[in-house]
């Protein structure tokens, strides 16, 4: 057997329609996937995960996951716990914004400066959690 060691963390972001925090959750997750930790992370598509996507669920069963939720409904965290197991870490966007909803200029998808700053903060936090999880992974 050949081993290809690959420590990876699955990032599960909420779908987040209808609120700007959902958009922030998604974009922050993508920033980590594409820029901050591209070799250490993989995305798990939440709708596919919840609907029974075998690759998504198989990965989440055997690799550590970090869930990123926009709001207190915690779709990503609850779904992951239900179908795979407790995530290694859970991040909620409103928690990082002092338990407040993020103000916007009116659109849920066009982030204003404040929302962009929060997105970057969330991305940094996700990246830190990825490092923590990988450090503890024996």
């Amino acid at each position: 057997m050949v081993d290809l060691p690959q420590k990876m963390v699955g990032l599960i972001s909420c779908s987040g329609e209808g609120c700007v925090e959902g958009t922030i959750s998604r974009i922050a997750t993508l920033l980590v996937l594409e820029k901050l930790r591209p070799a250490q992370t993989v995305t798990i598509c939440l709708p596919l995960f919840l609907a029974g996507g075998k690759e998504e669920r198989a990965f989440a069963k055997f690799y550590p996951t970090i869930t990123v939720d926009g709001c207190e409904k915690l779709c990503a965290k609850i779904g992951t716990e239900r179908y795979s197991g407790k995530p290694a870490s859970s991040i909620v966007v409103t928690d990082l914004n002092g338990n407040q909803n993020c103000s916007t200029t009116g659109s849920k998808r066009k982030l204003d400066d404040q929302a962009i700053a929060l997105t970057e903060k969330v991305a940094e936090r996700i990246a830190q959690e990825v490092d923590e999880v990988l450090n503890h992974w024996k």
Partner: protein
Amino acid sequence: MRTKGIKVDDCKLSEYLQTVFEKFELRVRKGYYYTEDGVWASVEGAKVRVGVTDYLQRTGGDVAFVELVKLGSTVQKQTGIGTMETAKTTVSLLSPISGTVEEVNGMLSEKPELTNSDPYGEGWLIILTPHSLEDDMKSLMSADDYFQLMLRKLETEHRKLESR
């Protein structure tokens, strides 16, 4: 799968050699022959069926168009038999052998996604009557060799991501 790393599975009972990269299972069909570009050839009596590998469809992305050479055409080894256009890129498909095109997979014009969902089955591309099969086969890879090539490609990709 296990919690650390990727296990390479060479289960003799399986039709495939397979590995897991990130969350994707990548398979190589045993008993087929392969080009380095990711095209497979399966000998079926006097004919040869041709398709794309799991690795090629996965790296190419969701296929929007598959355009193939015309029925009755003569193709030379390593010349074009069509293109596979995805949301990301357009891939030129080169014939693994020389021959005459006896069948073209008509399903792909309406359902190009078959090349993604079933690359070794319903997503086949063309069937050829070979002109010089024995000679052409000499430069094709076995499933084991292509599998090792695929693993090397995956490792290279992973290193590129690490160096970003």
